[in-house]
C-alpha cells in the first residue's frame, strides 16, 4: 500500500501546470468550458501534441509515451482544473487510439495513429441509435459487404462532435444470419465523415447548445481496410473499450469550475450581514461536496492504478463512473440552490455571476449520469460482475 505519487509524477504534474499557465496566458484558446465537447481548439491540441501528451499512455512502439494511466490522470486532472479545450483530440486519445492499438490492422494503425498523435484527425463515436441506447445490440445500422467495400446504411444519434469530426468510429451490423447471436453480428468500421451519403443533423440540447448530432448513412461506401479488428467482433471490442472510458477523471471534473466558484461564493458573500461561511448548514453542505469529491477522486486514482497493474477494471470502472457522475450532478444542484436566484442567471445575462457557469452546469447535469452507461446500467454491472449476483 503506497499512495505516494512518484517524484517523476509530481514533476510531471508541475510541468503540465506550467504548460497550462503559459497557454492560458496567451489568451487565444477557449479555456473554461464546462463541457468537453464545447471546447474545441485544434491549435491547442497541436500544442498538447507537441508536448507529446496525446497518446501519453499509449505504448512507445505506437508513437505514445508509454507512460501509465496514473500519469494520464495527473495530466487530465490539471487540464480539467482549468477546463482546457481538449475536444479535438480527446476521443482519439482516450478511445480510438487504444482501440486501434488493441484491435486494428497495421494499415489502420499507420493510417490513423499518427493523425491522432499530431492532432490532425478528430474522431466521433457512432454507436447509439434511436432504438439502441443502453441496448446497443439493438442497432439497426448495416454494413453489407460488396466487393472490397462495405456499404453502410442507417442512422446514428447522440454523436458528440459529429459536426466537426473528420472521422467516425461506427458500429454496424455485418452478420445477418438470424441463428447467430446479435453479440456476434456487429463490426467496428472507421468512416470518413465527409464521405458521400453521410448527412449530419444537429440536435440542440436543453442547454441550448449543439453538441450532439444525428448522423444518417445512405449507401456510404467504405473500403474493407477500414474494418477495425475482426469482422462480427465489434461488440466485444466495444465492451472492453467501455471499461476504459468509464474509468476516467473526465467523469468527475467536467464541471470542476462550479466547485471552485461555489467555494469562492461562500467565502466572499454575506447574507443579512453575516458571512455565509459562518452558517453551519452552509458549511455542512459545502463540506459534503468536498468529501464526495475527494472520495471519488481517490477512486479514480484507484481505477488508474488497476490499469497500471495490467488489470482490466470492470465493476471498478462502473463504480467509479457512478460516484463521479452522481457527484457532478449533485454539485450543480447544490451550487444553484445555495447561490439562490443569482445562481439561475445564464451565461451572457447581465449581472451573471461567474459567467453563468453554475446555471449552465445545472442544465448539463442530466446528461452526466446518462452518457457512457446510465447509472442504472452501471449498477447492474456492479451487482452482476462485482458481487456475482443476479446475472443472467
Amino acid at each position, binding site marked *: 500500500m503506497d499512495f505516494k505519487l512518484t517524484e517523476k509524477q509530481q514533476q510531471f504534474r508541475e510541468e503540465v501546470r506550467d504548460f497550462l499557465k503559459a497557454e492560458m496566458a496567451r489568451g487565444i484558446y477557449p479555456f473554461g468550458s464546462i463541457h468537453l465537447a464545447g471546447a474545441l481548439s485544434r491549435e491547442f491540441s497541436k500544442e498538447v501534441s507537441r508536448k507529446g501528451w496525446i497518446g501519453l499512455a499509449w505504448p512507445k512502439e505506437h508513437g505514445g509515451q508509454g507512460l501509465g494511466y496514473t500519469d494520464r490522470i495527473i495530466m487530465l486532472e490539471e487540464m480539467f482544473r482549468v477546463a482546457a479545450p481538449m475536444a479535438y483530440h480527446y476521443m482519439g486519445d482516450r478511445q480510438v487510439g487504444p482501440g486501434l492499438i488493441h484491435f486494428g490492422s497495421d494499415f489502420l494503425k499507420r493510417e490513423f495513429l499518427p493523425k491522432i498523435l499530431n492532432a490532425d484527425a478528430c474522431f466521433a463515436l457512432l454507436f447509439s441509435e434511436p432504438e439502441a*441506447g443502453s441496448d446497443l445490440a439493438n442497432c439497426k445500422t448495416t454494413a453489407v459487404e460488396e466487393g472490397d467495400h462495405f456499404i453502410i446504411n442507417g442512422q446514428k444519434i447522440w454523436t458528440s462532435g459529429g459536426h466537426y469530426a473528420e472521422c467516425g468510429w461506427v458500429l454496424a451490423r455485418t452478420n445477418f444470419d438470424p441463428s447467430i447471436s446479435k453479440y456476434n453480428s456487429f463490426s467496428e468500421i472507421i468512416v470518413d465523415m465527409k464521405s458521400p451519403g453521410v448527412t449530419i443533423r444537429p440536435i440542440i440540447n436543453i442547454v441550448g447548445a449543439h453538441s450532439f448530432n444525428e448522423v444518417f448513412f445512405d449507401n456510404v461506401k467504405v473500403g474493407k481496410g477500414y474494418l477495425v479488428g475482426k469482422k462480427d467482433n465489434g461488440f466485444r471490442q466495444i465492451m472492453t473499450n467501455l471499461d476504459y472510458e468509464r474509468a476516467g477523471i473526465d467523469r468527475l471534473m467536467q464541471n470542476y469550475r462550479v466547485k471552485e466558484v461555489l467555494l469562492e461564493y461562500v467565502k466572499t458573500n454575506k447574507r443579512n450581514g453575516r458571512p455565509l461561511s459562518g452558517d453551519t448548514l452552509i458549511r455542512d453542505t459545502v463540506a459534503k461536496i468536498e468529501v464526495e469529491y475527494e472520495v471519488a477522486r481517490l477512486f479514480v486514482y484507484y481505477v488508474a492504478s488497476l490499469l497500471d497493474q495490467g488489470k482490466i477494471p470492470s465493476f471498478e470502472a462502473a463504480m467509479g463512473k457512478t460516484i463521479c457522475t452522481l457527484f457532478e450532478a449533485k454539485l450543480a*444542484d447544490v451550487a*444553484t440552490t445555495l447561490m439562490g*436566484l443569482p445562481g*439561475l442567471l*445564464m451565461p451572457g445575462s*447581465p449581472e451573471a455571476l461567474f459567467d453563468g457557469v453554475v446555471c449552465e452546469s445545472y442544465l448539463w447535469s442530466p446528461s452526466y449520469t446518462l452518457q457512457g452507461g446510465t447509472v442504472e446500467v452501471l449498477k447492474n454491472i456492479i451487482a452482476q460482475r462485482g458481487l456475482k449476483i443476479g446475472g443472467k
Partner: protein
Amino acid sequence: MDFNFNEDQRILTDMARKFFEKEAPKSLVRETMHDRKGYSPPMWQKMSELGWMGLAFDEKYGGYGGSFLEVAIIFEEMGRAAVPTPFFSTVILSGLLLQDSGSEELKRKHLTKIAGGECISTLALVGKSGVYSKEEIGLEAKAVGDHYLINGAASFVPYAHVADNIICAARTPPASGEGVTLFIIAGKAEGIEIIPLKTIVGEGVDCVVNMRDVKVNQGQILGEPGKGWECIERLWPKIAVALSCKCVGGMKKAMELTIAHVNERVQFGKPLAALQVVQHMCAEMFIKSETSRHAAYHAAWLISEGLDCEKEAAIAKAWCGEAFKDVTKIAHQLTGGIGFTEEFDLHLYTKNAKNLELLFGDGVFHRNVVAGRVGL
C-alpha cells in the same frame, strides 16, 4: 374531510387545462422563452376575457369574488402548461398585495384594472443578492419635502419591462418612516431603468430595476410608511401556495411525459417499464406528486377559509419545490438522451422546477419558518 375538487372546481380545472392546451402549445412556450417580451399578449388577452385576473378579487373592484382555491387551480394548470405569463406578478404579487394592504383609493385605481385584465403589474422586492429579507432590499426611499426620492436597484423583478405598474419595496430611513415602505409606481416613471436578465426560465422574465431619483408622493404608498415588510409577510403564504400549486401541475405533467416514454421505449426486448428499478423510480415520482398535491391544496384551502396557514404554506412550498425538482431529475434519468433534447418537452419543466424551487424561498428558507412554528 373531502380531498376532492367539487363540481365547480373540476369544471374550472378542465376549462383551464383545455385553454392552455389550445392556446399555449409547446411551440408557443419555446418561442416565449426566447422572446424579450416574455409572454404572449394574445394569450394574455384571452385569459383576461375568461376573467381569470379577477378571480381572486372582490366584486366591488371588478373581480369575481372567487376563493383562493380557484386561483390555486389556475396555478396548477399554468404549471402543467409551463407557459410564461405575468399572471403571478400581476395577480398575486400586486393584486393580492393591493387587496390586502392597499387603501380604498389605490384599490379603486389599480386593483380594478388588474381584476379587469387591463394592466400588467409587478413587485420589486429583492436586491441583487436575491435573498428575501428586509436587510437585503436594494432600494432606498428618502423623504424630501412632500415627496420621496427612490434610489438603488432591485433584481429578479418579474416582468418589470412590460409592467404598467411596479410596487417597490424600499428601505426608508428613520426620518421617512423607519422600516420598509411600499410604493406603487408607473413602469415608465422617470428615473427607472429596466434591464431584462437571461435566466433559466427565459430571456424576458426577470429584470433588474435601477432607480435614480425616482419621485413618488404619499399617495403612492401602499399601507403605512415603514410597515411595508409586514404587508409582504402577510402576503407570503399566498405567494408560497400559488407557487406550490404551480409545482404540482408541473410535476404531474413531467411524470406523465416520463411514464409515456417508459411504456413506449423498448430496450433489451422489453419496454423500460418492465424493469423493476424503472417501476420504483416511477413510484417515487408518483409519491412526490400525490403528496405535493395534498400539501399544496391543504394550504390553499386554509387560505380560502381565511384560516392561519403560515406553517402549512411553508410546508407546501418546502415540499413541492423540492419534489418538482426531484421529479424532473428522475424524469431525465428515465427519458435518457431524448429527454435531454430541446425538442422533447421535459426541459421546460426542468427549468421551471429549478426556478420554482428557489423563487420566494427555497426549502431551507421555508423549513426555517416551520422551525419557528414548532417553537425553535
